[in-house]
């Protein structure tokens, strides 16, 4: 493939408008990774198409010559979903950023895949609507990437993740065929291909347009901070809130190191004298929020809450969320990190938190915990020094142990970040080879050539031989 680089680049240039192909050796380097910086590969070329037709033309070309393709949105994947390989053409959707249709009566928005998550909510906010899934990287991450990873976010506790809010896509298959799935009508006519595509990590095709569900904004929303003197108490409080039948919009957890990191950036007024912090958001009318909050406060008191602080203004609420949503990036202030994403049953939350700490200690590493507690989706941030190869190896080993711990506790490897490269080789801890074979068979129905983001998700061993 690499010997044919010159030809491939020249051919791609013919398929794309000026300024839409990166082939310069220097220019390719910045595409070698995404937000999972532990792994890097410089691609063969980067195509930045402006239309679905151009995406189709590039895919048709790549399929004809068997060239691997790696789709990329904003490159914010924490699992390496957008990391290329040396013989691959990256197809970046960053130039496809138009909002195509906003239909308030039907509560849908149709956008190009490169539109950022937050842009959708911003576009419909004046009319009193929002798009619910809110990954912490929502400022930058694209809707195409969200579909690729079936992204979640803090508010998914109430509103569901991407797959629950996605109504339709236009996508290009490996050979350049353009198809449409779903639309403004609910549910599938036949097989739920949309459900299969969502979260398929760019292995079934490249989504170029998406139709998503909009929701009416609640009358009000109020994040409240609950401080505890131990992580165990906070974890138990979460389990009891959910168990009692109260489902707040969001329950976020931060331990002491995470609180310090987030406060340093956002200055949100998080209490610094607690061991663990919950951000619980309630919404509705003032009376509804008061009522829900009263029940939550009762439960929190039973679990020894030491601080309760309600946000007093929209600005304060925004800062509380800004701090939480910037947690991973803000960690860069103190160390390099890898971010785990296992989900565990709520009853195991406290236990897994404790064991996570033990694992990190065993490897001599620090860990900060900041995550979506309400649905058990944990994000231990393992802090290390990427410039020290031994430290990096320890961090990776600790990460693997933590993820296995999550699976063994009845959970899964990844709740919202995707398998990507990061967790590829752990898949057999969660699935049998037969399970994976069936998934790979489904994949092959879409991409018989196995050229779409081929190095991801499935362990390299045990793949079907072509």
């Amino acid at each position, binding site marked *: 493939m690499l010997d044919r680089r010159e030809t491939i680049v020249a051919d791609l240039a013919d398929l794309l408008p000026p300024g839409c192909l990166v082939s310069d050796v220097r220019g390719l380097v910045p595409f070698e990774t995404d937000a999972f910086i532990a792994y890097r590969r410089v691609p063969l070329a980067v195509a930045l198409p402006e239309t679905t037709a151009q995406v189709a033309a590039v895919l048709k070309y790549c399929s004809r010559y068997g060239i691997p393709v790696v789709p990329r949105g904003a490159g914010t994947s924490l699992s390496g979903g957008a990391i290329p390989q040396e013989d691959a053409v990256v197809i970046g959707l960053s130039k496809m950023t138009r909002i195509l249709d906003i239909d308030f009566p039907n509560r849908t928005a149709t956008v190009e895949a490169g539109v950022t998550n937050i842009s959708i909510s911003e576009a419909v906010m004046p009319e009193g609507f929002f798009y619910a899934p809110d990954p912490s990287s929502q400022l930058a991450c694209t809707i195409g990437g969200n579909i690729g990873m079936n992204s979640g976010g803090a508010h998914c506790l109430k509103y569901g993740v991407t797959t629950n809010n996605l109504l339709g896509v236009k996508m290009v298959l490996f050979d350049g065929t353009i198809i449409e*799935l779903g639309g403004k*009508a609910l549910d599938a006519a036949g097989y739920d*291909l949309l459900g299969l595509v969502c979260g398929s990590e760019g292995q079934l095709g490249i989504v170029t347009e998406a139709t998503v569900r909009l929701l009416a904004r609640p*009358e009000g929303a109020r994040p409240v901070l609950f401080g505890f003197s131990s992580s165990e108490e906070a974890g138990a409080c979460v389990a*009891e809130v959910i*168990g009692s039948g109260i489902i707040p919009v969001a329950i976020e957890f931060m331990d002491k190191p995470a609180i310090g990191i987030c406060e340093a950036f956002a200055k949100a007024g998080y209490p610094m004298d607690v061991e663990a912090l919950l951000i619980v958001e309630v919404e509705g009318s003032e009376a509804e929020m008061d009522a829900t909050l009263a029940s939550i406060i009762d439960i929190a008191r039973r679990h020894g809450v030491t601080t309760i602080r309600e946000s007093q203004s929209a600005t304060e609420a925004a800062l509380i969320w800004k701090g939480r949503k910037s947690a991973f990036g803000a960690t860069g202030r103190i160390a390099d990190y890898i971010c785990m994403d296992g989900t565990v049953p709520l009853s195991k939350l406290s236990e897994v938190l404790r064991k996570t700490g033990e694992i990190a200690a065993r490897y001599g590493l620090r860990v900060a915990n900041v995550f979506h507690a309400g649905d058990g989706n944990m994000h231990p941030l393992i802090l290390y020094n990427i410039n020290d190869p031994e430290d990096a190896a320890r961090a990776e080993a600790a990460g693997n142990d933590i993820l296995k711990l999550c699976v063994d506790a009845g959970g899964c490897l990844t709740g919202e970040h995707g398998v990507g490269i990061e967790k590829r080789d752990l898949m057999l801890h969660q699935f049998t080879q037969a399970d994976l074979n069936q*998934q790979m068979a489904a994949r092959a129905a879409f991409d018989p050539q196995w050229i779409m983001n081929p190095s991801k998700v499935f362990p390299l061993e045990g793949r079907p031989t072509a």
Partner: protein
Amino acid sequence: MNIDFEPQTEDDAAAIVRAAAQRSARLRIQGGGTRGICAAIEADAVLSTRKLSGIVSYNPAEMTMSALAGTPASEIEVKLAEHRQMLAFEPMDPRGLSGATGEPTIGGVFATNSSGPRRLSAGAARDHLLGLRFVNGEGIVIKSGGRVMKNVTGLDLVKLLAGAHGTLGLMTEVTFKVLPLPPASATIVLSSLNDAEAAGAMARVMSMPSEVSSAAHLPESVRGRFISGRLPDGPATIFRLEGLPATVSARAEKLTSACAVAGPVTVLEDQDSRALWREVRDVKPYADGTERALWCVSVAPTVGHQLVAALRLETGVDAFYDWQGGRVWLRMEADPEADLVRRFIKALGGGHARLMRASSAVRAVTPAFEPETPAVSVLSARLREKFDPKGIFNPGLMG
């Protein structure tokens, strides 16, 4: 229908399928056989999951339950109700429409992605299915998903199997999310709107922050057949509010005054409200013991009424609307008019119509599912081939 196989364990089921695959014997897969599936399935034998029954695990505090596929849906709902929980997507009881007498199973609920009025706000059956175990067409047991709320590990075969009507695999165990049963329910009834006005009103109400969980429109022709005729005179546009009693009444008050400009408003309190939506869920007006063709149509909410209006100019139809107008229960007076219905749906921006009931003569010649576009149908066929290479599951039904 005679049942040939009733496996009692997953291993049994896998062995039966393996044997069938070896002989290329085609199996009709069913749970309780209550859904009156409207397609010409050509099978050599019938396999029912109803003996694969029982709740495997239920953890109310985690809001998840696992059950074997043949567990009666009613058993599950009773168990959940004991802990004041529910299946939020409100699967219908299909027996009213089909006239069948068996027990609908939880496997059937998910295999048909059966969702009721609360689908509008809470999502469909597929949105609540967290994990499953199934036997593929080669008799191999496959697991997908898990038992946690958020899980993106690997391809989401769970979604694919939900609604696949058993054509991609024989579900043996399902794990699903459950939600707290709302302590209070109230329904705002706005009388006097015609179908088009109702579509507008529903769109407006759904854009308000009142957290309406369901919105439906029951035209005059069907109104009297709900809750024993206790709905007020005139077509009824209905909105359901659920939650804590205090918040429900506060929202009901707001919504009532917002709706009052459009026409007379009444509020149905708890019991009537719950009964009404159960009947909407089970398509009460058309559960009339006949075999008249019934379509379940899904289109964009604002065009449902346009579809009905267009059809009325061509043929005899009766209809009512759920899901803000986007789900149309369409009962044909005589001919099913499949081509007409599907042509109009396409002209109105797309969607799909599924034949839910018809005489056997009609079933034999009418595709129950909306035909897919050529490129998509190629994908469906390939998928089917990957899960069931010999084509032994419910041949003729899908894919």
